[in-house]
Structure formats: structure tokens, C-alpha cells
């Protein structure tokens, strides 16, 4: 049986809408994702959740490390410490990926399972035919959300604890 490609199941507009809702609710009411591409800096951080089911892959959020820190402060607001540690940033970016991923999963055919968020170097993307990518700017800084098919060996090994840090 051949699995459907992600581009047959959703499009960029759906992913953008899901991300917009997550941003407004979690990052802030006035925070918007402008659907324009930008060049990611060299030092990036990715957070992702795996989806395993009729379609198997990952929902990956990638941005510059500085952007990730600003997102963390936006999520924590007055509870943000003066100096953020890596665990805070991983937690915040992972939770954003988790919320976007959970809502992406909801529009995909089921039944499927969602893995726990992971943070690190993003899983390798497969063919562009099985990738739906949204490029956006938040506060003028680039980030990407990629719904990408799995490299099967990596996902089959363990969907929850792949090549990142389980949260």
C-alpha cells in the first residue's frame, strides 16, 4: 500500500492558518506570522513532533536561535527568567511545535499517533513531493514550518525518541 503524499492531504494555507492560531493564542494576541520568506541565519534551532499513521512524518518548526529565545520570552512573559537556559528554549519551541503538530495531525487521515516534542537538528526532509513548507516572518525574523514525510528508517526506529532530545 502506498501512503498518500502530504501535498495530497493539506496545503500551505491550512498550515499557515494552524500556525496563526497557535501564535495568536500562545505568543500573543497581536503577534502575527507574515507569510513571506526570509533567509534563516546560520545558527538555527528546530523543534518537531512525529506523526505516525496513514501518513508518517514530522511537523518541524525551525528558526534562528535568537528568534527561539524571543519566542520563549513571549510565551513565558513575566515568568521569563533574566537569563534563559537551553532547557527553557527547548521547552518553549517544543511546545509550539507540539501545538502546531497536534492540529496538523487532526486534519490528516487517522488513526495516527503524535510523538513527544524533540529539539535539535531537524530530521532530514524527504522528497519535496512529500513536504508542505510554510515560510514566515515573526517580528521580521524568518522561521519555517515544514510538514515533511519521514525517512522511514529514522521513524521506524522510534517515533518519540529519534535524533533529538525528548522533552
Amino acid at each position, binding site marked *: 500500500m502506498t501512503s498518500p503524499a502530504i501535498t495530497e492531504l493539506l496545503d500551505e494555507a491550512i498550515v499557515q492558518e494552524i500556525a496563526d492560531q497557535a501564535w495568536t493564542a500562545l505568543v500573543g494576541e497581536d503577534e502575527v506570522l507574515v507569510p513571506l520568506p526570509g533567509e534563516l541565519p546560520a545558527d538555527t534551532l528546530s523543534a518537531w513532533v512525529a506523526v505516525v499513521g496513514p501518513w508518517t512524518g514530522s511537523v518541524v518548526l525551525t528558526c534562528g536561535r535568537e528568534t527561539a529565545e524571543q519566542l520563549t520570552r513571549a510565551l513565558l512573559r513575566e515568568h521569563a527568567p533574566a537569563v534563559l537556559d537551553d532547557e527553557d528554549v527547548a521547552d518553549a519551541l517544543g511546545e509550539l511545535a507540539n501545538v502546531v503538530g497536534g*492540529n496538523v495531525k*487532526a486534519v490528516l487521515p487517522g488513526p495516527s499517533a*503524535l510523538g513527544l516534542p524533540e529539539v535539535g537538528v531537524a530530521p532530514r526532509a524527504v522528497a519535496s513531493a512529500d513536504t508542505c513548507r510554510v515560510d514566515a516572518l515573526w517580528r521580521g525574523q524568518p522561521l519555517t514550518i515544514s510538514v515533511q514525510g519521514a525517512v522511514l528508517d529514522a521513524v521506524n526506529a522510534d517515533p518519540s525518541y529519534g535524533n533529538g532530545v*525528548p522533552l
Partner: protein
Amino acid sequence: MKILVADDSRVMRQIVIRTLRQAGYDDHDIVEAEDGRDAYDKVQAESPDLVLSDWNMPNMTGLECLQALRSAGSGVPFGFVTSEGSPEMREKAADAGALFLIAKPFTADTFSEHLDGVIA
């Protein structure tokens, strides 16, 4: 009234607590738990009046926590706050005895809709 907030993400626990306050529930004691096992233990130790729990957590999921609590005879009011709100999960949650399932992302209005009948 004491509310137990269970989520493996510290950031999300802060957001849930902040949203409770924004929804007007700002004079309640909050207890935090970092996974389902911790939530189960703290229900026994702290006797909260309500549990707001994530679903996907390491060690013990929110659903496993709820099932364990009911098996142990606890009838503590229990609701899910989770990134997955599919009809199948809502059915599983209701079958296990959950009062509601709030899907992330949520707003203060969403909290009010689900909690007004639960929190006095």
C-alpha cells in the same frame, strides 16, 4: 479551591495558569505536576478539586493517569488540555470519565466555556 495543572512542559503549565487567571479564576491554589505519574501522586497527596491535564506526557499519559485514578476510587473532576482534539480522543476522554477536553491553542474564553460549570 485547589487546581492541579499537569503538563510535561513548564512553559505550557505557565500558559495554562495564566489563562486560568485571564478567565477570572485567579483566587485558586495551583499545584503543578510534570507528568501523569506526578499528577497521580499529587492527587493522592494534595486532594485537588480539579485536575487540568495534558494528554501526551512521558512516564504516564494523562489518559493513563485518569484511568489509574478512577481504578483507585478517585472521582476528582478531571479535564484534558491537549494539542489533540480529534473526535476519537474526545470519545476516549469521555469514556474514561473526563469532564471536558480543551484543545490547544486555547483562549481565556475557551477556558470559561468549559470551566464555568465546574469551578464555583
